[in-house]
């Protein structure tokens, strides 16, 4: 059982919905990211998704693309990210999930990357460009290290494929709310709640939803249909707007926003 499984077990027995912020490692620099992780740990987040900047992120909208570009301009390297994580993780309780392109994992060396990530205190991986057809090998290596390889399911995933993905799911299911790229949206698809319910009826693995969710009232509408809510662009945008001029204000802004999201997810 990974730290992610343990976290969802606790959340389920307490009847709570997870809030999972996404932040980009190294935007605007790794010290900031370390401080932000510690601050988010006190804001009631259930898990934190840490994005590894990548030069060619095809699933990401402009906000996250630009944050990756900012981080890469600072020459943020995988080793430096994991060093920072290794320093911060013993001081926080929130499990960390790495969002990382397979291009990076492969080039780093799959086993060395996983060993390094594990010893730094990462609990799971989301590899957005590794669909289930290609992921058996990586999942087996993750299992050996008690790392959860979290699969993605989207509205375009065919039913028989959903069944295949669910069978091999670890940690939680990342359900992508819409066919498209990451980014804030004022409206979520009308059929989202039904899609989530349908998915949850087929699995005991927790189902978390991401892509497009940016406001507390959107999140509060999902408390009955999802085990967790993932918010990326709305947070990364706040960091991009503020961090270069006032780091403390940027961290405080993200913490305040996260608290709002956490309280909007409390079941009435």
């Amino acid at each position, binding site marked *: 059982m990974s730290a992610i499984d343990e976290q969802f077990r606790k959340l389920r027995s307490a009847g709570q919905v997870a809030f999972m912020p996404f932040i980009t490692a190294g935007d605007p620099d790794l010290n900031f990211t370390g401080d932000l992780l510690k601050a988010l740990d006190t804001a009631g987040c259930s898990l934190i998704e840490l994005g590894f900047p*990548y*030069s*060619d*992120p*095809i*699933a*990401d*909208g*402009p906000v996250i*693309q*630009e944050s990756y*570009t900012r981080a*890469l301009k600072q020459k943020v*390297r*995988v080793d430096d990210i994991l060093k920072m994580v290794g320093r911060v993780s013993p001081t926080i309780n929130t499990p960390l999930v790495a969002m990382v*392109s*397979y*291009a*990076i*994992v*492969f*080039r*780093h060396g799959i086993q060395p990357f996983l060993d390094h990530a594990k010893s730094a205190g990462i609990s799971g991986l989301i590899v*957005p*460009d*590794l*669909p*289930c*057809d*290609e992921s058996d090998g990586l999942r087996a290596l993750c299992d050996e290290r008690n790392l959860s390889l979290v699969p*993605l*399911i*989207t509205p*375009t*995933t*065919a039913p028989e*494929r959903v069944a295949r993905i669910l069978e091999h799911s670890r940690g939680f299911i990342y359900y*992508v709310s*819409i*066919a*498209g*790229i990451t980014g804030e949206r004022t409206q979520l698809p009308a059929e989202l709640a039904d899609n989530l319910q349908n998915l949850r009826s087929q699995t005991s693995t927790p189902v978390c939803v991401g892509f497009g969710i940016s406001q507390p009232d959107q999140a509060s509408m999902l408390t009955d249909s999802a085990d967790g809510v993932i918010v990326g662009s709305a947070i990364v945008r706040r960091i991009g707007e503020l961090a270069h001029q006032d780091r403390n204000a940027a961290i405080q802004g993200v913490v305040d926003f996260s608290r709002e999201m956490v309280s909007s997810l409390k079941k009435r």
Partner: protein
Amino acid sequence: MPHSFLPEPSRDAELPDSQGRFGEFGGRYVPETLVAALDQLEQEYVQAKQDPAFQQELDHLLKNFVGRPSPFYFAKRLTDHCGGAQIWLKREDLNHTGAHKINNTLGQALLTRRMGKTRVIAETGAGQHGVATATACAHFGIPCVVYMGEEDVRRQAPNVRAMRFMGAEICPVTSGSRTLRDAVNQAMRDWMATVEDTHYILGSVVGPHPFPLIVRDFQAVIGRETIQQSQAALGRLPDLVVACVGGGSNAGGMFYPFVATTDVELVGVEAGGRNSQPGNHAASLGLGKPGVLHGSFSYVLQDPDGQTEDVHSASAGLDYPGVGPEHSHWKAVDRVSYCSVTDQEALDAFQLMCTTEGILPALESSHAVAATLKLAAQRSPDEVVVICLSGRGDKDAAEIQRLIESG
């Protein structure tokens, strides 16, 4: 030999396998959102391949709209200048729109219509694939959006105008390096949100399965015609076939029908740029390593952290940090040898082709010419070398003038 777009069976005819693998290369490294569209495309293509009406329509277009077969031409003065093997040219530059790209875009436009999709997107670097896509879409009346790096929009103004005349919408891409790689990224992002009604006409033998297979098959008409024409003109196959390799579509289409014939030597020519330092060339096979880019596992130019490196070539069409997975396979099994020539060598070859043959080749194709000059000089006049002259160079005239003047 029947005139059909389908490749003849060959030793490698079973590749890619059902997972889209050419040996260890290829596959599908894409977001889950795109998998359904790739499955649909694969199924449609498999059906189309077996549908005589589809083949007939494509053959008709290739003959009457594109002007195929393209000529197989003996370059006498270039041969005399070189003083070695006979140099023959496969004249893809004489196709409608001036390059081999139209072979693929017409095929994929037909697939678009078969799938009932009502919108097309494409990426382009130099603009040749963009023009060929805009042309195919105008022919079929399909709305078309072309993603093009902001830097390339500026450098390739004549092609941008041509695309607009054909009714295509040009979307300049301002992210990343603002060139071909970013145009591919942006086209993929568009496709993520529009897969239901949009087909992405990818322009090279790169990307996730089934694109490397489909583009190769549509381009294989080049190699098949060359075999037929060489038999007719010379009574035998050539000894050596040379083609330039960016993503690798003209080379893929030229080489594939020859792959089973092991006594024909095949040489792919990459862009050596200014030098072999990172950022100064685009020689993915020569100087890169296996890795993942744009949905497939193949040779790629990356830094040790897995970030895609900047690339350089005087030729915008070769200015790409990856290469098709089948080329990686051919390199691994040692069926094709890959080399590179520098910007300067390509420019020199361009000028020589102009003055000895009265043919203005594309800068991309000039790379194949430059490599051939070296190879042919070492061979006897009994031997036959074929260059895939993939495109014409009118688009490059202003840039070449600038490069010659700046020395």
